[in-house]
């Protein structure tokens, strides 16, 4: 039996009136990011690891890796005293450890760049970046300039904001 755990956070102070929205808008307001890995755990990933969404989009992280647990954890001082890499007005999130088949949801309201990581796999550069809205939005906050709290490997693994905005989503096939 597969356990499924869903937790929903609303960040940025907005109220999501999901059931009052037209069907087409509801369908577009949910994006799925899968956590995956090879059978022996040589490689692990978020897919996509770069994603552009509109404000108010709910992100569902799903662990599709049958042999590992993963987290989706925002870089933020409130979580393990990390340097903030999400917009200042946004609240941080941490999925906790998701076993295979489990999922976690977070709704992103504040425009800007959100970087997150997997706690047990940050050293292997299992990280991702979500871009909410675009730079012309009020309250937009771009990517963190910090280079001291994360490794060069992590920084190299984060897609460029320009590329995410241009492509919409960036997956492993786009890594090379």
């Amino acid at each position: 039996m597969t356990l499924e755990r869903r937790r929903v956070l609303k960040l940025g102070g907005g109220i999501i009136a999901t059931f009052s929205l037209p069907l087409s808008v509801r369908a577009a307001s949910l994006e799925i990011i899968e956590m995956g890995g090879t059978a022996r755990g040589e490689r692990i990933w978020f897919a996509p690891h770069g994603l552009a969404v509109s404000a108010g989009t709910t992100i569902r992280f799903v662990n599709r890796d049958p042999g590992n647990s993963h987290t989706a954890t925002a870089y933020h001082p409130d979580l393990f005293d990390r340097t903030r890499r999400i917009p200042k007005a946004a609240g941080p999130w941490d999925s906790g450890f998701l076993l295979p088949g489990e999922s976690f949801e977070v709704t992103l309201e504040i425009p800007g760049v959100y970087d997150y990581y997997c706690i047990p796999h940050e050293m292997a550069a299992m990280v991702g970046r979500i871009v909410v809205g675009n730079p012309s939005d009020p309250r937009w906050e771009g990517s963190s300039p910090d280079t001291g709290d994360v490794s060069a490997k992590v920084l190299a693994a984060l897609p460029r904001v320009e590329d995410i905005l241009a492509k919409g989503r960036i997956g492993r096939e786009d890594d090379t």
Partner: protein
Amino acid sequence: MIKSILLSVTLVAASASLAIAHDNEALLHAPAGEPYVQVSDVLPLPAFLPGLGTLFVAPDTLPAGPFLAYDHDGKLSATVYMTPLDDLQNGTSYDDLIIGSHEVSSVDIYYNAGHPGVDKPHAHVVLYHDAEAKKRLAK
């Protein structure tokens, strides 16, 4: 006199062998007793890991282990060691590690990017204890 000493040495050696055999017997079927704990009871990992089975480890031996790997029927099928690559590179050696069974049919060594319990990228050294063990641990 010499015969007497040889007899004593032989008896001591036989006793030691019996003790080792007894210790191994205790580990051949899950659950492994103390000081071993089931990994999924203390870490956020599935109870049965595809490729590794149900793992038991003595916490004091982390990160190297041994991790005792049992199949779905609770039969000891492999002994697994997990050795962080940067620890090895920095001079750490893991010597005289315990093995779950003295019968080893084959050994696999491969890279793992990390998981709860052994976060650092590391090598898995897997000693299979019979020819069918890998198949039984696969899923």
